[in-house]
């Protein structure tokens, strides 16, 4: 607040304008804000809201276009592949979100407490795997997981895996996909969380240290509560992305010449309905299921943690 005031005072004012400087500034600020948001807003409408609305229309209609109520939801819910797909993704999310919170926060807190130069190098290293786009990172992992070509074949051998089929058994998949997701995505979140930690005023941390708080106590009692909203934000986005798991099971399935069910995740099941059974309405119903689940979880987190409240 202080800095804003001082900046305002130092700005040269245009005295020729009939509007008062404050009013003009306000109007300008407003226009600039809209201009900045407009690009995103247009894209959001085109590629976010409209497709979602189209999916909702499809989900409540039959292929002929007439309204069918909840039929599509009931029929897809009764399908033999529906529950297993949601179970698979549920297990994956538990591992992925759990490790995300614990390990990402742990690493970010650690980076924040070590020397700045070393921490920058570490942040860069953590972020690196994220530079590989989704499909490419899965391909890297296909080599890592195949004991016949993997640089980690000794390690895989310890578990008794002798071929790719043994590594990618159905029971191992949630963990494998969580590791891939973590490897590719955690670095970005470590950088974001580190940024959040940097926002904490130094005075607060110094005050805590003066009161006798050690590194761990400062981390748990001062830093964590202050970045709570960032953690919630991370969880909402990671949850939404996680429920949409598609590329990983699809590619691993193709690479193993079909040893994974083509409907492993709900998103794959929706894809199957749309393109194997040519039933876009069923596919839309599953997309809407995912949308509702994502919104509900986000709502719970937002309201429980008062994410949108401005102090």
């Amino acid at each position, binding site marked *: 607040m202080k800095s804003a005031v001082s900046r305002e005072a130092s700005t040269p004012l245009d005295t020729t304008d009939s509007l008062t400087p404050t009013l003009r500034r306000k109007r300008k600020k407003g226009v600039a804000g809209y201009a900045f948001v407009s690009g995103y807003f247009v894209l959001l409408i085109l590629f976010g809201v409209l497709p979602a609305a189209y999916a909702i229309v499809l989900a409540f209609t039959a292929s002929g276009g007439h309204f069918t109520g909840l039929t599509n939801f009931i029929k897809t819910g009764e399908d033999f592949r529906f529950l297993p797909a949601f179970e698979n993704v549920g297990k994956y999310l538990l591992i992925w979100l759990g490790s995300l919170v614990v390990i990402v926060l742990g690493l970010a807190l650690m980076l924040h407490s070590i020397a700045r130069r070393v921490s920058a190098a570490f942040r860069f290293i953590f972020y690196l795997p994220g530079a590989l786009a989704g499909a490419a990172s899965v391909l890297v992992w296909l080599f890592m997981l195949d004991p016949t*070509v993997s640089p980690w074949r000794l390690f895989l051998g310890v578990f008794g895996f002798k071929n790719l*089929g043994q590594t990618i*058994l159905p029971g191992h998949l949630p963990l494998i996909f969580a590791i891939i997701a973590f490897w590719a995505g955690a670095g970005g979140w470590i950088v974001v969380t580190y940024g959040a930690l940097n926002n904490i005023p130094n005075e607060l941390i110094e005050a805590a240290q003066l009161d006798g708080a050690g590194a761990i106590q400062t981390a748990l009692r001062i830093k964590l509560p202050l970045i709570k909203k960032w953690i919630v934000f991370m969880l909402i986005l990671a949850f939404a992305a996680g429920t949409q798991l598609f590329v990983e099971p699809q590619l691993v399935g193709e690479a193993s010449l*079909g040893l994974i069910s*083509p409907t492993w995740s709900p998103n794959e099941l929706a894809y199957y309905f749309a393109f*194997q059974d040519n039933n876009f309405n069923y596919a839309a119903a599953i997309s809407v299921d995912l949308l509702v689940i994502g919104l509900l979880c986000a709502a719970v987190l937002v309201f429980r943690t008062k994410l949108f409240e401005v102090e």
Partner: protein
Amino acid sequence: MALATFGFVEAASAAKAKKPTITIWVDSTRVPQVKAYEKAHPTVKIAMNIYNGNANGSGTLQSKIALDNRVGNGWPDIVFSEENNDAASLASPQFNYPAVLNKGLVSKKILGGYAAGTLAGCTVNGKVYCLRNDLAMNVLFYNSALMTQFGYTVPTTWQGWQTLGEQVATQHPGYIVGSVGDNWDDDIYLWPSECHVDDVVKTDTIDINAADPNCTRATQLIDPLIKDGAVTTDSVFSSTFGTTYNNKILMMVGPAWYGQYLFPGLVTKGDLAVADPLSWGSGPTVTGEVGGGLWFMSSHVTGATKTLTASILTWLSTSYGSQGISPGYPAYVADETPWIAGQQASGLYSNQIAPVFAKAATEVWSGWSPVPWSTDSVFGSTVVTGLNSGSTMTSQLAGFASQLADFAQSDGYTVVTTP
């Protein structure tokens, strides 16, 4: 100036109408066949698109056709599919893709030139929707040099195969008599055993019974061999199969195309031999088949282009110029003799393959029907993954059948279980 411009546009569009581009989708194995067509017909414009051949239940073709149907254009004019069930799927009202070939597009002479029953999988309610590329019936491949060296005789029955497998496991560990590591192995072991898990008994009614003794007799033979290591659970196309089993495959039941596609590099040239499909001792000998490949033409091709497209389709599937370079045993009878001669001349085989292939081609059991879902894919995600986790083939049968029944029911079939 304006007139001249219009004249030019008109002439150009007329030339364009005369010379349409025919879009052909094939898997990488079929590329040389399309290239051979282009070479033989330099005036025809071909746009070739390479895709995964719709293999292993990937459903890529269905995905593309569904999208093309949605936007109302973009269909490939000709497409090759490795999935033998595709006529049933693509001709269904959901996709409505392939053109009917036996109503004037392809001559009766050509259709009659196929080996008896080979177009059955292409025929739905009397309409022929595709032409077969090759016959992929299973035969018994063996290494004749190893057989002589070990002093074994080539078995003629599955029971004999198992006994020899047990012998190999104790006398020559490391050598194998088969593999169950791929999702098409149901076609290699369960189909020839007349296992009723894929038998469409009448329209929309399918017989699925994993408890069928015909299914368990096969799996109970194989399970001990897997345990002993005489049958491997490695995929035959895994990256190290070639190095691990180089000249260590004593026998392997597999489709005719294994000969030219899998074995070169695995068996010393001149040591590979083929024998008749194994029998079960009683009843007529039957066998299964793995793929074979189908050529489809789009029903969305119209006007004069129709005749040209049909002629390309016919050339690719029946001419020796195309079939002579295909790794599979041609389904079109006239191509078989020269194809066999070419194979024999390659020096890969130590015995005569013609009588074995010709006989086996007529022995494919008809109780394994084309259905809109991929039986192989279900076998892969249930039985093969089960084997990889240390379970037995026999114990995975129930799960395999129950998932097949789920697929059948969700596609509107009534599932029956014959005792």
